[in-house]
């Protein structure tokens, strides 16, 4: 693949509304290669809607999105994007799938030849190893803990060697220790060259982890250094009330 010399994600003047209720207005930003961006905001600030627009799951009312320099409507290189949705199982733990099968489904380019293969192939094992869960490959997905399941879906996202990893509230429902290990793992991935876009309501974790924050409250409040999250005016613009971040130990 040729060296990318344009933004990985380019958003220009995006707007979205449900009827007359404007959910997003005039959102413009670029994500460059190697960046680690955290989208933060209160409930109803438009975080998930923005993410869905970026991934082509929701069509904006106005504005445009480019992925890897290509307008979203013409973009076909989906293997360059690894997506980890929030609560993918929606509580159905009886879904009959092993960890290997879920991870393998992220490797669409191989076509349908794998129908008759019951074990995990090398590509899948490598992705599982990278996510530190190769020992779980035969387990059924419904048997895993929340943290393990998140890693399975990250392994699934990694199996196609993506340049951009997109995660929607990845730490929802997992305990603090697992959460810390999870963020360390994301750090490792970022250091290996993957651009990361993360949506979270957890301000402290975002302030600690990312290189760039995108603060949202239906409009773009700020886009820049995580130090912005120390600014009371920005926090007030995001949440409407005073809010403090207790521990901010930035890693970058």
């Amino acid at each position, binding site marked *: 693949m040729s060296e990318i010399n344009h933004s990985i994600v380019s958003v220009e003047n995006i707007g979205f509304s449900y009827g007359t209720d404007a959910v997003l207005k005039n959102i413009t930003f670029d994500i460059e290669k190697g960046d680690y961006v955290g989208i933060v905001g209160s409930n109803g600030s438009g975080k998930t809607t923005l993410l869905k627009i970026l*991934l082509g*799951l929701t069509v904006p009312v106005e504005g445009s999105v480019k992925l890897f320099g290509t307008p979203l409507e013409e973009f*076909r290189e*989906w293997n360059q994007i690894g997506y980890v949705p929030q609560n993918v199982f929606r509580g159905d733990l009886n879904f009959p*799938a092993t960890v290997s099968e879920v991870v393998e489904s992220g490797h669409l380019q191989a076509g*349908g030849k794998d129908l008759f293969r*019951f074990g995990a192939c090398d590509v899948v094992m490598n992705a599982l190893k990278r996510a530190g869960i190769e020992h779980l490959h035969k387990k059924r997905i419904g048997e895993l803990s929340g943290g393990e399941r998140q890693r399975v879906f990250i392994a699934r996202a990694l199996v196609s060697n993506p340049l951009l990893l997109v995660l929607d509230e990845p730490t929802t429902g997992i305990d603090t220790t697992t959460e810390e290990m999870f963020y360390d793992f994301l750090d490792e991935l970022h250091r290996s060259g993957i651009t990361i876009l993360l949506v979270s309501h957890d301000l402290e974790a975002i302030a600690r982890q990312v290189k760039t924050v995108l603060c949202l409250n239906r409009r773009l409040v700020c886009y820049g250094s995580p130090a912005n999250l120390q600014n009371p005016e920005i926090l007030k613009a995001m949440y409407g009330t005073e809010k403090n971040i207790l521990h901010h130990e930035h890693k970058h």
Partner: protein
Amino acid sequence: MSFLSLFQFDFIVRSFEAGMILAVVAPVVGMFLVVRRYSLLADSLAHVSLLGVALSLFFNIPIFFGALTTSLLAAVGMEKLRRDGYVLGEAIIALFLSSSLAISIVIMSLSHRLNANLLSYLFGSLSTVSSLDVIVLFVLGIVALFFLLFFYRELFIFSLDEDLAKVSGVRVRLLSACFMALAALTVTASLQMVGVLLIGALMVVPVLAAMQFHRGFKTTLSLSVFFSLLSVFIGFFLSYSFDIASGGAIVIVAVLFFLVTYSFNRFFVNFAFRKPLN
């Protein structure tokens, strides 16, 4: 009469071939319906097919053509309503199921001569299978298996999570439309053999029995086909040995398999081998 001696009759060979093909295709399509929580779709499409049969008899057009057209139209309509999101998924199925049955009943009451013909489609009969039916089923089986072979991964992700499928580059609308068409075709082709009231069971019950083993997707799919083949085989034998309705016999055997696997799972796997709580 021994079981093997039954095969000296052409109509029995035909019905056995048809039953075996159906035993492979029905759970393959049914598996994706079950995991998408769309199990009743087959029942709904079967009732719509009955409307197609009624219309075909009323207007004197080929029955397969009429039943397939109505079930395809219904499949497209149901998918459209589901995507629009204004009506709940299960309610859409109920809407199509009851409205098509209502129209069928009205047509039956308008033309009393249809009653006997139409009622034969409610329960089906393997003994009425023609050579053409076997050919149609064979073609359907090939189409269904090739569809599965080429789009297995896409169907798998689509069943797991639709958004995930879209972001993986799957053309979800096209895939969904093709799958619904395949479901409609399967239901229509098996209508005469298993009947409107039982086709849904043949597509769903072997899958439920296989799911009790708590295995992966491919293993569950293989076990579904295995239980389905066994159900058709044993049901076919019982049907001719005791002169009972083939559709009913097949589905009862499938339900028995489910009960056995469910009980085994509940009492042996969950109970006998579970570590005691300290």
